């Protein structure tokens, strides 16, 4: 009997007991669905973060006051606050004067939420921060219209502003923000450019901001202290020299801070690798634990399939006897029941996959985008079929070994 005929036989046996087959498969369906949903969320989350990292600039690094490690607990935070001094523009000049690997480095100042006004319109909670003009190149800022800052505007502390699309939409509903004035804390600024929209990251809007030249920001808001801390963003000429550039930045900062060998950094350097590493350390174990639960459902599903296949063998003892009397060999009977278990289980996997896809659509709509890669779909069906075959092994073996005379005598 060839493959398609055995498959047809299996399908007709499954179809003959539709409700029972479905109930049998519930465990399998729940297992595969849960597994695929968790997996798709994980995948979606990963690609989401990768995308956002790419959006920030995959070959930029940030020199800042604190390191990720400093936030472990309150003691390390307290220690870091004592040891790590705030960065200064002199630090930046020190690096700039000595670097060979860093192709560009610029300073930014931390922003905070402020109310922006334009005419009779106002918008609250807009992030206002400052950046050097070179940041436009380093972060590869996409300008929707107008332009980014010039060096002259920064050096002279001119009151110009580069804004996000949310701000333009809210304050200039007609989209004519360029050249218009916005007011922050009573000081007017002229809009010179609008950035291409970026959407949201973790639910935070990325386009609700006003950026000012660093010097303008510093002098109008009371210097680079507290929440307006300075940090530097640097990049290398190419991806190949990126690690060397990061190493050099670290070395220069240690020289600048006069740290002894073996002494801990009194600053932090954040790279895209560090971000994905942090993500992995947070979510890696969590997802393994979460994936463990659907695995249990799969095992339970397999046991249910084995049970129902044992029932099927008992019910169809007569059929097995008839087939044997007509010349079916043990291998024929074995294959028939293995196929049936495998097909049954693969159908469960398929239903589970479809359900997971539907749930994924809902999650994508309301939470974060989910992804079921094609290979995961293939694996899901393959694994469930394999689980079914494994579960069917013992019942099929029992069927194949039946004595034809005994089997024919069965009712």
């Amino acid at each position, binding site marked *: *009997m060839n493959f398609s*005929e055995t498959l047809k036989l299996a399908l*007709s046996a499954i179809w*003959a007991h539709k409700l029972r087959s479905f109930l049998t498969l519930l465990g399998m369906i729940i297992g595969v669905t849960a597994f695929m949903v968790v997996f798709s969320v994980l995948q979606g989350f990963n690609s989401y973060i990768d995308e956002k990292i790419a959006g920030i600039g995959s070959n930029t690094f940030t020199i800042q006051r604190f390191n990720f490690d400093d936030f472990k607990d309150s003691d390390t935070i307290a220690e870091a606050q004592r040891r790590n001094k705030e960065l200064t523009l002199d630090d930046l000049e020190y690096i700039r004067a000595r670097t060979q690997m860093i192709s560009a480095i610029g300073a930014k100042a931390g922003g905070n939420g402020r109310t922006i006004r334009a005419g009779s319109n106002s918008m609250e909670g807009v992030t206002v921060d400052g950046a050097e003009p070179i940041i436009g190149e380093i972060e590869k800022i996409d300008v929707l219209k107008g332009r980014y800052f010039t060096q002259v505007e920064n050096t002279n502390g001119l009151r110009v502003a580069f804004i996000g699309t949310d701000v333009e939409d809210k304050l200039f509903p007609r989209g004519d923000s360029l050249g218009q004035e916005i007011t922050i804390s009573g000081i007017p600024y002229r809009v010179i450019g609008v950035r291409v929209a970026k959407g949201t990251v973790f639910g935070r809007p990325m386009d609700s901001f006003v950026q000012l030249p660093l010097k303008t920001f510093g002098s109008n808001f009371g210097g680079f202290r507290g929440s307006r801390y300075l940090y530097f963003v640097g990049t290398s000429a190419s991806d190949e020299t990126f690690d060397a550039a990061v190493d050099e930045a670290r070395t220069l900062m240690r020289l600048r801070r006069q740290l002894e060998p073996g002494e801990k950094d009194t600053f932090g350097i954040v790279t895209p690798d560090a971000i994905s590493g942090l993500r992995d350390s947070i979510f890696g174990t969590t997802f393994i634990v979460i994936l463990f639960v659907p695995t249990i459902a799969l095992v339970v599903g397999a046991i249910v399939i084995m049970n129902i296949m044992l029932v099927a063998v008992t019910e169809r003892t*007569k*059929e097995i*006897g*008839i*087939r*044997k*009397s*007509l*010349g*079916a*060999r*043990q*291998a*024929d009977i074995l294959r028939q029941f293995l196929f049936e278990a495998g097909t049954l289980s693969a159908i469960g996997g398929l239903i589970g996959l479809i359900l997971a896809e539907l749930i994924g659509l809902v999650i994508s709509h309301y939470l974060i985008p989910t992804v079921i890669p094609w290979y995961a779909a293939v694996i899901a069906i393959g694994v469930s079929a394999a689980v079914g075959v494994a579960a069917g092994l013992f019942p099929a073996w029992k069927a194949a070994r039946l004595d*034809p*005379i005994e089997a*024919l005598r069965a009712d």
Partner: protein
Amino acid sequence: MYKFMDDENGERQPAATDTAQTGEGLILMKNIWKTYQMGVEELHALRDVSFSVNKGEYLAIIGPSGSGKSTLMNLIGCLDSPTKGDYWINGNLVSTMTDDELARIRNKEIGFVFQTFNLLARATALHNVELPLIYAGMGSGERYEKAQAALASVELGDRVGHKPNELSGGQRQRVAIARALVNHPSILLADEPTGALDSKTSVEIMALFEKLHAEGNTIIIVTHEHEVAERAHRVITIRDGRIENDEKIK
């Protein structure tokens, strides 16, 4: 110990072993024992049974229940192996064969007809008839042709798509006969073929067996009904696991 049979021309058959070698005797059983172990006691279902059947014979095996005739039928049908003794069918020594080899013999050499028809309930008449061909490894096109032809030969050519529960008892038994014949077996082995049928249908089925015999098929019917046995050309009577009588009646 065993008897030599005279064939229809009255010529003496060669010795039993020679029969197997020359291939004239289709079935040869030689000193067959079948013993069941019931706890410490041994139960001899067959004791030293020997006989041969030639091609084209119409044989009935008769005996009361418990006589060992079912055991004998299972051995003839290669559903079981003897405890002791040699059994040849169509030149194959089957008494020492493995399960899978026996399955092949059942497929190629034997066509079963059972008292309760033993059709697959979920399958159509056509599919039921196709089953032996499926296990013979035949392709679907050829299989379809042969199964159609076999059903037509038992006058069920217009019922191929019916399932067993849509057919009468006589029709079911004819499907079973078509299934038994479709692979051109050496023998048609029928176990109480009319046991589940009314007398009118029984007559029809027995007439069909006679027709098949006339066409050259070798037929062995196992029964406890004398009326059925009397239709055969030779009757072997079994009692207490031994051949009590073996006579030609036509």
